[in-house]
């Protein structure tokens, strides 16, 4: 078999060269040397089991040469494969050296043929797999799964009765005006947050948290307590957002804050 090929080599040369050039342009389209070998083997137009590994090695080496001539840089693994194929070629062409312990050229060739066949088989299988009916494309799962979920989700279980009672309570609250909560001594966190956001732009130096309390909320102890708490909470919120830095030197020491500088 190898002999037939050698005699044909000259004739095939131009053809292969042209092919190699076409391939060179496309070198990025190959997924590695094995993929390239598989493509080259198809040009032999025979069953992959009957492919001439020697011919294939020739084609590959030609390809690498062409790439060199066209000054296209090949990835290292293409060159490693070229060296290996050159070695294989010499083993296939030269009579076996009885001293040599390594595998015979035929064994090496057979393994390469196996690798090519296996790669092709995987390609075909991948295509058959992707051609199957697929979930979410051809067949579908229940669109509205009910309550059954392995996720740690919070399920709100308020009932219609809760809803109606809540509504009725808001509706009757007016009747119980004296019982409704006095909100005027409360400085909410939201108010504090709004206020802080306006002020922190100027807080370049460390400064006491207390100075951020609104004027009107500093005297009356009840108001002062509410404002302190909400201003502190708002400051924490801003630290979380990365807009503010806070520090406290000791337990119960005063709390300082400043704008976070982008460093």
């Amino acid at each position, binding site marked *: 078999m190898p002999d037939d090929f050698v005699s044909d080599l000259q004739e095939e040369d131009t053809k292969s060269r042209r092919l190699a050039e076409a391939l060179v342009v496309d070198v990025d389209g190959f997924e590695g040397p094995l993929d390239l070998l598989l493509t080259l083997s198809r040009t032999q137009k025979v069953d992959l089991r009957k492919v001439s590994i020697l011919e294939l090695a020739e084609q590959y080496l030609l390809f690498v040469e062409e790439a060199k001539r066209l000054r296209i840089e090949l990835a290292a693994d293409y060159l490693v494969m070229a060296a290996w194929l050159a070695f294989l070629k010499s083993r296939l062409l030269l009579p076996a050296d009885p001293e040599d312990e390594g595998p015979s050229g035929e064994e090496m060739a057979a393994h390469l043929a196996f690798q090519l066949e296996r790669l092709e088989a995987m390609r075909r299988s991948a295509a058959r797999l992707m051609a199957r009916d697929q979930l979410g494309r051809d067949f579908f799962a229940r*669109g509205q799964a009910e309550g059954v979920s392995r996720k740690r989700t919070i399920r709100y279980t308020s009932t*219609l009765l809760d809803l109606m009672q809540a509504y009725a309570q*808001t509706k*009757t609250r007016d009747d119980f005006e004296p019982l409704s909560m006095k909100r005027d001594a409360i400085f909410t966190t939201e108010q504090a947050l709004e206020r802080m956001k306006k002020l922190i732009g100027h807080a370049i130096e460390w400064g006491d948290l207390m100075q951020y309390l609104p004027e009107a909320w500093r005297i009356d102890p009840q108001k002062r307590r509410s404002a302190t708490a909400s201003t502190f909470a708002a400051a924490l919120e801003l630290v979380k957002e990365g807009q503010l830095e806070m520090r406290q030197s000791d337990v119960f020491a005063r709390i300082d804050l400043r704008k976070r500088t982008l460093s």
Partner: protein
Amino acid sequence: MIEDEDLQSLFEAPPMAEQERMVEAILFASAEPVSVVEIESRMPHGSDAAEAMVYLRKRYEGRGVSVVKIGEGWAFRTAADLGFLMQKERVEHRKLSRAAIETLAIIAYHQPATRAEIEEIRGVSVSRGTIDMLMELSWVKIGRRRMTPGRPVTFTVTQGFLDHFGLETSRDLPGVKELRESGLLDNRPAPGALDDDEANEVDQDDMFS
């Protein structure tokens, strides 16, 4: 060569048994209740989704799941007597906070309602988080802007809300007076506040008329 019969069948609606299968699959795969109009629009020309639905409902009668109407749409639901089978996996049950349930109730009864209206009824400000949470639960959505100064957004309840609370429409919500008469409420109105309530009732009726 195409036979006359085949040609005709190309333009004919599929057999009813086949249409029933289609409705079954659509209801099953859909993430939300689907209306008959929509189902039909997805079926081959000439199909009669409403008729197929009749057969499908019949088929599921007494089964572990049934076909139920929710608002304008249809959906599969676990048979009510088998609800206990779903209990195990519910990881965390939680009641809505008082602020949330009140806000939700006000939106449900007064929709479309603006934030200012909710605040006025509740007598306290509504935090952003509360409405966000209700929207996240898909119980409340943003409605049209009110054509008043400032063009505030309004909030309305969703199909998901109706679904969760087992209502066909929000008109099914009983009025405050009804609630009180049926003794569901532990809050007794203060004496003399009756007039007030009546006035409220009127307001509310207006909303749904």
